């Protein structure tokens, strides 16, 4: 019994899944079991996007205090626009559009990293300033026009297998790969070491700058990819498409059991937290809460979750 408790204690991310389950049960209790399946399908579909960018954000946050990628929303907006413009509604150009959106992400990531490295400024400030510039570029590039995705791309992003979105299956596989990268590769270990103590990690032979560079490029590339997928999923790009993901990525990372102080990360928790957040809003909608009440409760529940999970306990 005590061993079981200890196991759960070691896996704080279980809490996020438990929360997701509880919220789902509360919802279908209200609808008397109706629509439970559809709700899960929708939760999986919408969580996919949060997970893709959330994992990038998780690696960034894991590299230590002050490391947060604030440029994710603008990158999503820019990359979504770039991808849709290049695809131009033609199926034959999907691959080029996907390459372009990742390329746009990598460009933003490179810019972020150059700022961090050359100006030696806290990443949160570097990504904040670059996000302002990227947003202006996105506005200027897209002229605020919405371009529709190619039909096959739209089909792919909305396809389902037995009620499970294709994209979600891909994202689950993606999360598994990222979990292995985190725990079992030199890059992943380096990220965790840097997050605990950058100086000590460097003196222990960890390639600090290479690791940080990869991390910021990765986060921006994931945001870029997410931009294209989101544009495909929602029938076209929009400038405010990424807006909610700034807060959402930080929220899922933390609720998912990753330490904001750095050095401790958790991939499965990202999925749990993303599902939880989506299901929470669904539940509030079902109960007929107004927009304002929904916001207040979402906020309070995020705070309650983090309070419950506890902050950074001393590791002794």
């Amino acid at each position, binding site marked *: 019994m005590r061993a079981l408790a200890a196991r759960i204690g070691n896996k704080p991310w279980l809490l996020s899944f438990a929360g997701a389950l509880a919220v789902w049960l509360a919802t279908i209790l209200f609808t008397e079991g109706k629509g439970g399946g559809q709700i899960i399908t929708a939760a999986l579909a919408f969580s996919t996007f949060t997970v893709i960018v959330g994992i990038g954000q998780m690696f960034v946050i894991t590299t230590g205090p002050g490391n947060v990628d604030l440029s994710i929303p603008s990158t999503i907006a820019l990359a979504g626009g770039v991808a849709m413009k290049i695809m131009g509604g033609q199926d034959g150009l999907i691959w080029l559009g996907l390459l372009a959106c990742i390329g746009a992400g990598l460009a933003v990531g490179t810019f972020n990293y150059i700022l961090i490295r050359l100006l030696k400024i806290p990443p949160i400030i570097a990504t904040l300033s670059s996000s302002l510039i990227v947003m202006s570029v996105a506005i200027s590039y897209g002229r605020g026009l919405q371009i529709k995705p190619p039909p096959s791309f739209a089909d792919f992003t909305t396809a389902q297998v037995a009620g499970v979105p294709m994209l979600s299956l891909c994202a689950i596989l993606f999360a598994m790969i990222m979990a292995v990268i985190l725990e079992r*590769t030199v890059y992943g270990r380096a990220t965790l*070491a840097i997050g*605990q*103590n950058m*100086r*000590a990690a460097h*003196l*222990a*032979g960890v390639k600090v700058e290479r690791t940080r560079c990869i991390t910021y490029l990765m986060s921006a590339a994931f945001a870029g990819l997410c931009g294209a997928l989101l544009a495909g999923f929602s029938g076209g790009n929009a400038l405010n498409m990424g807006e909610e993901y700034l807060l959402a990525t930080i929220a899922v990372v933390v609720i998912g059991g990753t330490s904001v102080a750095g050095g401790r990360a958790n991939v499965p928790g990202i999925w749990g937290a993303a599902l939880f957040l989506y299901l929470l809003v669904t539940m509030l909608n079902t109960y007929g809460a107004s927009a304002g009440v929904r916001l207040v409760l979402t906020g309070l529940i995020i705070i309650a979750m983090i309070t419950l999970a506890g902050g950074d306990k001393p*590791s002794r």
Partner: protein
Amino acid sequence: MLHATEKIVSLSGMTKSFGAVRALAKVDLTVGVGECLGLVGHNGAGKSTLINLLAGTLAPDGGEIRISGQAQPAGYGVRRASALGIRCVFQELSLCPNLSVAENTRIYHKSLRGWGWRGSAAELIRRGLDEIFPGHGISPHATVGDLPIGDRQMVEIARAFTVTDSPTRLVILDEPTSSLDAVAGKQLLTYVRKLVAEGGSCLLTSHLLGDILDYCDRVVVMKDGGVVADRPAVEFDRESLVAAMGNVVSDARIKAHARVTAQRGAMPVVVKAVPKLQADQAALVAHKGEIIGLAGLAGHGQTRLLLQIFEAAGQTRADTNAAGPVALVAGDRQNDGVLHLWSIARNISVRSMRSLVNMGLIDGAAEAALASKWRERIRIRTPDIDNNILSLSGGNQQKVLFARALGSDAGIILMDDPMRGVDVGTKLEVYELIRAEAEAGRTFIWYTTEIEELNNCDHVYVMRDGQIVADIARAELTEEKVLQASFREGAQT
């Protein structure tokens, strides 16, 4: 009672446990008025816990604290201790780096407020510094973070002696000389004697047994959470003190181990480094299999030189070359060494991750094998190698850092005063290991603040003001020569 004099502090039956670990078991301790008491013991003997209880930063599980004869109630804490005139200088720096020296003084004294508080604080700390460390050259308006570590330690000590509303009756100095150079250390201890002569009291812990024997009136030896000896200092000598701490072997045995080395230069040069500030072309040269000592007063560019070599690993630069991989053993464990969220095993393997990779992934079995191998070799005392690194005592954490470096592919090992605050037993074990590894062809560059340790080295460089000022072969090494080079004034050569 053995001591008939008046007591400033008397602790009786002090007990404290951390989880299952009993740090103190019914300890009695007294400090007399006008007495300097030395407290010695290994890491984990319970000294720090006892000091924290006395300073009010920890609450005891049981026992009685009497200050000037008054029994203290259960709520005894820092504030109460401070009001009763008990001041503590902690081992780790407790200054705010973003504040000025004067502002840091204000933090310490609640009564420094209202108009002109800044001026009074500045005057207070200036007087304190002048009195203890004449010629210190520290401005009260300087930001603490911009000062070198030695200066910061001086500010911290001087601040503990400053007096406003409540008089200073007892000063607790926990390893005060660890960051000070020899001159400042001597100034401090001289001041302590003066204070004691005037009726103040002092509780001093130090790993430098010479300081304890020379400056304390009485010595209390702790071991495993209890007091094992309590006698006037004159009844101890070095040997008997070490024996009392529970060490069968004393430092003196180091000398007997002096290596018989081959002619210097028979082996290839693996490290050559000219310090950045070096005026002439004098360079540190290390041949394969040598143990090179770096000596001099604390903070005279030794660590910087080590980092310079570290950064040049595997490269040939204009002023530095290091043939092959380099590993560093940090001395400042908390800031430079330990990865506090990780297990002992991961802390060992981090330097060797790249060689443990199999098909792109780190091989878990190989990682575990590496960690257990070094746990055996360097005798890390832990029930489980997967425990968190912080479950270890300071000395054992240091062993993990040695295992990290020695378990790696590095042929060149840099050591940044790694024995700081490490008990004698651990030291002797590690010395032996270093010698064995050097025999096997590894090269060591060893910065140390303890002159005795240089006896382990084949060749010693002394640094002063960022430059190499002496180059002493093993055969010619004497303590006098090292000290002479460390203190020589500039200008002449």
